[in-house]
């Protein structure tokens, strides 16, 4: 059906192949992928090559090097996990020159802290860049105390952020005066100055684990969470963005990725355009800046959709009341909610029909394709289900849920090798996807691969503990996480018993 060369491609990327792609990418984008990015690059390559049914990396290389559009598609995947100092520089210019002055103008005089949160800070480039920008804005001179917090779920990334030693490449594209002001040359690379480092706190936090610690839930002037809509599925994104809204001060700003919009995610924020940069502001109780140069409301929302390469197309501006609430004119978000409901009520055909209408209005709504995939799976049409899940993945390759659905589809068809691949990919995207670990454990156990079965059950238990409310819960059919844990324990016991007897 889709991918004759899939198995050949998935196994490994040789050092030569990696270097070949790395060099091409470097020559044509300036982005340098470290050796440690080999596996991540491989997944991006497989994702793209699979789409065309290509049987070898060589075939895909030919395609990549002769097709500019394909190169851009690949780079979208490759750069999702990339981070760098002053990534999307226009956002930091807008922050320094316009956003900070605007926030200070309305800040209560008693409040002398100016607080920014970098959510998903990875190896530290973003929180340090925010700190540098706060310093450059001169707010300290006005008596404000800048504080930056970086949080991430990867402790390895946090360790590197704390080390704060960056290679020459990390600074070589920055303006010379930025480097001389904010970096020290040290043994082994470059490090942000002590002033910058002292301003930044780093700590572990999982954005989809609620409730958030109280310390996170208030008094932020700025929250940066770029790629939030890319990492999480829609429901999780809505919750995360709502938590950000609650945590921001009135008038505070949420910075998302330059190609992201919150259409269909949140109607709580004002959409604001500052010099070509699109940002989201928590409204103040009264509008203090009627004459502000910043423009908000439906007008700029419309501009988001036309000017920025948005991921979904708003059809009804959120602020405007819907004139005719009859079912046929329901906005896509409502249709999608109805589709979800139909699924839960066991009406897959209704769900498929509703999802089709959402897709008609918003051809890039990955969640709608997912609902359709579920619907088809519920009717037993696995080919159609797989096709819809694949379409969802084309739009958003990092949807753990879509990967998981594919895995389940293959498992139902008894195609275990492919099921294993999809569950592994699910985990690659979301390592805390407990039911994917669990399913892997079951398959391995059935295959007599006891070592892998034990490891998978252990991972499932770990994931259960670390993300008890992850997206995976939607696949529990109402059963409790405790039962899943017990079943894992039982699987482990069976494995050990089998090993002793064997």
């Amino acid at each position, binding site marked *: 059906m889709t991918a004759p060369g899939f198995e050949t491609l998935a196994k490994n990327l040789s050092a030569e192949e990696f270097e070949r792609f790395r060099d091409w990418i470097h020559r044509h984008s300036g982005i340098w992928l470290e050796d440690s990015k080999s596996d991540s690059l491989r997944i991006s390559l497989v994702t793209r090559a699979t789409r065309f049914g290509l049987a070898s990396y060589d075939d895909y290389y030919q395609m990549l090097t002769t097709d500019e559009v394909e190169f851009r598609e690949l780079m979208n995947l490759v750069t999702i996990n990339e981070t760098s100092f002053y990534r999307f520089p226009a956002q930091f210019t807008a922050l320094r020159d316009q956003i900070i002055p605007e926030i200070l103008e309305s800040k209560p005089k008693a409040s002398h802290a100016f607080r920014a949160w970098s959510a998903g800070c990875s190896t530290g480039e973003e929180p340090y860049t925010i700190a540098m920008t706060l310093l450059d804005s001169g707010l300290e001179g006005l008596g404000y105390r800048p504080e930056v917090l970086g949080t991430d779920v990867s402790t390895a990334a946090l360790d590197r952020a704390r080390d704060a030693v960056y290679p020459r490449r990390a600074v070589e594209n920055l303006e010379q005066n930025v480097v001389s002001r904010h970096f020290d040359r040290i043994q082994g690379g470059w490090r942000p100055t002590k002033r910058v480092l002292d301003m930044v706190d780093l700590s572990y936090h999982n954005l989809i684990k609620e409730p958030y610690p109280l310390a996170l839930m208030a008094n932020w002037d700025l929250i940066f969470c770029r790629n939030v809509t890319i990492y999480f599925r829609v429901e999780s994104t809505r919750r995360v963005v709502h938590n950000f809204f609650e945590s921001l001060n009135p008038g505070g700003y949420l910075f998302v990725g330059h190609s992201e919009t919150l259409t269909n995610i949140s109607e709580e924020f004002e959409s604001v355009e500052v010099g070509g940069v699109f940002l989201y502001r928590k409204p103040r109780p009264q509008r203090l800046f009627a004459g502000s140069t910043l423009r908000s409301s439906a007008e700029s929302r419309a501009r988001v959709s036309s000017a920025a390469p948005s991921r979904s197309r708003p059809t009804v501006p959120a602020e405007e009341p819907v004139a005719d609430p009859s079912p046929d004119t329901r906005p896509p978000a409502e249709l999608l909610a109805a589709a979800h409901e139909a699924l*839960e*009520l*066991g009406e897959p055909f209704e769900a498929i029909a509703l999802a089709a209408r959402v897709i008609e209005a918003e051809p890039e709504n990955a969640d709608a394709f997912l609902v359709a995939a579920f619907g088809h*799976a*519920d*009717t*037993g*049409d696995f080919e159609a289900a797989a096709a819809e899940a694949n379409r969802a993945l084309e739009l958003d390759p990092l949807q753990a849920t879509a990967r998981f659905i594919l895995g*389940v589809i293959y*498992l*139902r068809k008894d195609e275990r090798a492919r099921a294993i691949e999809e569950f592994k990919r699910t985990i690659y995207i979301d390592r805390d996807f407990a*039911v994917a670990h*669990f*399913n892997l454990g*079951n398959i391995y156990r059935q295959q007599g691969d006891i070592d892998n079965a034990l490891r998978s059950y252990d991972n499932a238990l770990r994931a259960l503990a670390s993300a008890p409310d992850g997206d995976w819960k939607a*696949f*529990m*059919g*109402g*059963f*409790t996480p405790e*039962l*899943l844990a*017990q*079943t894992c324990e*039982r*699987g482990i016991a069976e494995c050990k018993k089998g090993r002793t007897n064997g």
Partner: protein
Amino acid sequence: MARILAVDDSPTILEMIKAILESGGHDVITAVDGAAALESARAESPDLILLDVMLPKLDGYRVCRLLKFDQNYKSIPIIMLTAKTEEQAMATGIRTGANQYLTKPVEPDTLLTAVATELDKAQG
């Protein structure tokens, strides 16, 4: 110890149900859709069937009705598992002739008790 046919469209959930039943000392065979359930019920004549309502191809109610209206299989006790509200499940469950219905999420003990009860009734 009884042979039980467990039917659910999710392999994940099926494994959990299987673990519960095996912990109660039962032998478990499984099916992931309505058509396979029907086929398996006819071929294997299990002592009891645990049937999810929402199934691909042929929903649980239809499977139940087809078996209960068939002289050869009507004596096999059927417990239906449903995520729907109790009233709805009860109404439809009774119409389709299921012996018992359970609303998800089901506690393992509740499930084992229901199974034991139905097996007792069938033998007595």
